[in-house]
């Protein structure tokens, strides 16, 4: 084994890992307020990527397209909440599982019909010419993935900690009924969490598209990994998903290099099974502190 090869593998694996972390973070956002997650999150990533691609093809410049793309992500997230999740939450059942899967399938076939089944390149102004940093090759495009992931997670975390609306978000997560008694509308907070989660999906789409290309199935593998990361890290720790994401991403690229590319999916699966068997609350998940 060669040290610089390992370092190279860890760096490029980590970048994918950060994308898993970002999608997992999207799961956490909605789970916090509503104890529900969007199983069609991968389709949101894919549809927003297609919408961004279409806007680019219409001649809209990249930096103008980005905010529009994020807005579309927010609207898609809201659609999932309104069309699927809310109904189930109002009746206090687990119907959101099926509903979000079905909405995902609907997005999938809509995308196939509108944009076709082919994978298409995603143009970006960010260069993919490799730089050498301490003997490791990394492209500005890859760096933009890391930057983008940290930027959006940082902004949302700041929002949650520094604004009153963000604190209300945390209050609904901690005790929904008590939050209602403070005049906080849980329904609106849940809508907000779904739109934020949609924004996060759109960011993930924008970041990975230039690397993976855009196609109806572009996010299906990503989202499974993200799900493993969310389960392993726990559904309440943003810090945890980043760590576990980095770990899983590196492990995958090491495995595919040293064991064989066919084994790439193995670490995610093993991690998921281990987590479910050993620690269902996740490595970083904590039992809420409550004293009576």
């Amino acid at each position, binding site marked *: 084994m060669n040290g610089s090869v390992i370092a190279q593998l860890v760096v490029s694996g980590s970048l994918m890992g950060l994308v898993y972390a970002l999608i997992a973070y999207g799961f956490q956002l909605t789970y916090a307020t509503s104890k529900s997650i969007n199983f069609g999150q991968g389709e949101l990533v894919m549809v927003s990527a297609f919408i961004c691609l279409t806007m680019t093809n219409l001649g809209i410049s990249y930096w103008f397209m980005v905010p529009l793309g994020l807005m579309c992500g927010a609207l898609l997230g809201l659609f999932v909440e309104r069309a699927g999740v809310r109904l189930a939450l109002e009746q206090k059942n687990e119907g959101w599982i099926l509903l979000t899967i079905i909405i995902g399938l609907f997005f999938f076939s809509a995308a196939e019909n509108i944009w076709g089944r082919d994978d298409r390149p995603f143009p970006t102004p960010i260069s993919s010419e490799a730089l050498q940093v301490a003997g490791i090759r990394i492209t500005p495009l890859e760096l933009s993935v890391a930057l983008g992931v940290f930027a959006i997670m940082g902004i949302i975390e700041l929002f949650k900690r520094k*604004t*009153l*609306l963000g*604190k*209300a978000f*945390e*209050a609904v*997560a*901690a*005790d929904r*009924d*008590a*939050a*209602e*008694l*403070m*005049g*906080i*509308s*849980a329904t609106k907070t849940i809508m907000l969490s779904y739109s934020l989660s949609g924004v996060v999906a759109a960011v993930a789409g924008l970041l990975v598209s230039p690397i993976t290309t855009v196609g109806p199935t572009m996010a299906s593998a990503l989202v499974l990994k993200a799900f493993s990361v969310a389960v392993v890290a726990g559904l309440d720790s943003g810090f945890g998903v980043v760590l576990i994401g980095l770990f899983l991403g590196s492990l995958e690229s090491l495995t595919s290099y040293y064991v064989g590319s066919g084994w790439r999916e193995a670490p995610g699966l093993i991690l998921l099974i281990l987590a479910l068997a050993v620690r269902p609350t996740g490595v970083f998940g904590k039992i*809420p*502190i*409550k*004293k*009576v």
Partner: protein
Amino acid sequence: MLVVDNLYAGYGKSEVLVGTSLTVKQGTVVGLIGPNGAGKTTTMRAISGELKPTKGTVMLDSKPVQGLDASRIARLGLAHSPEGRRVFGPLSVEDNLLLGAYHRLPRFFGFRSRAAAELERVYDLFPRLMERRRQSAGTLSGGEQQMLAIGRALMAQPKIMLLDEPSMGLAPVVVDEVFSIISRLKESGITLLLVEQSASRAFEVADYAYVMERGRVVMEGKPAVLQQDARMVAAYLG
């Protein structure tokens, strides 16, 4: 101020409230007492909208509010400090207080300065909360959590406050402390509906009291009068 008339409410198929009526006049402290399971908490929840009443009316400031969402009723000026305190454990003490004033404050920035005066008043009343304002609420003692739950409700500057069993699970000295705070709030003119298991405690601060049994009010009157009542003495003050 608050007029509850012939209220019915329950959980699923089981009816708990079967025609509860009570009135809280502006600037008075009204006690609601009764044995375990009488429906005191359910009454409060049906008033504040946490639970939707199936029949009857709740008038707040002469406006019907029954059937509205709890968050709407809170914005109309009713603060309900629920049974078991229900502070937001992971959030800091100060964040809990700020959230109490949620509906009066700007959502993004500048909310801290807008809440400053009220925050100072609450810290004056509960110096211990001031000391612990950065600590997460879940790590407070039971008594401190109760103070926080009261402080959080006061932050809303409510027209009327509902306070459900503030003495629950607390040591007698701490209960004394909580009730001396309630007396101080009373002097400052608060309008309060207070649920309390211990009738004698409730009578210390109440101007008027209702006794509930099996989902309806069975007796009412001024504490001084109720204290003379033979049935009352036998059941609650013995």
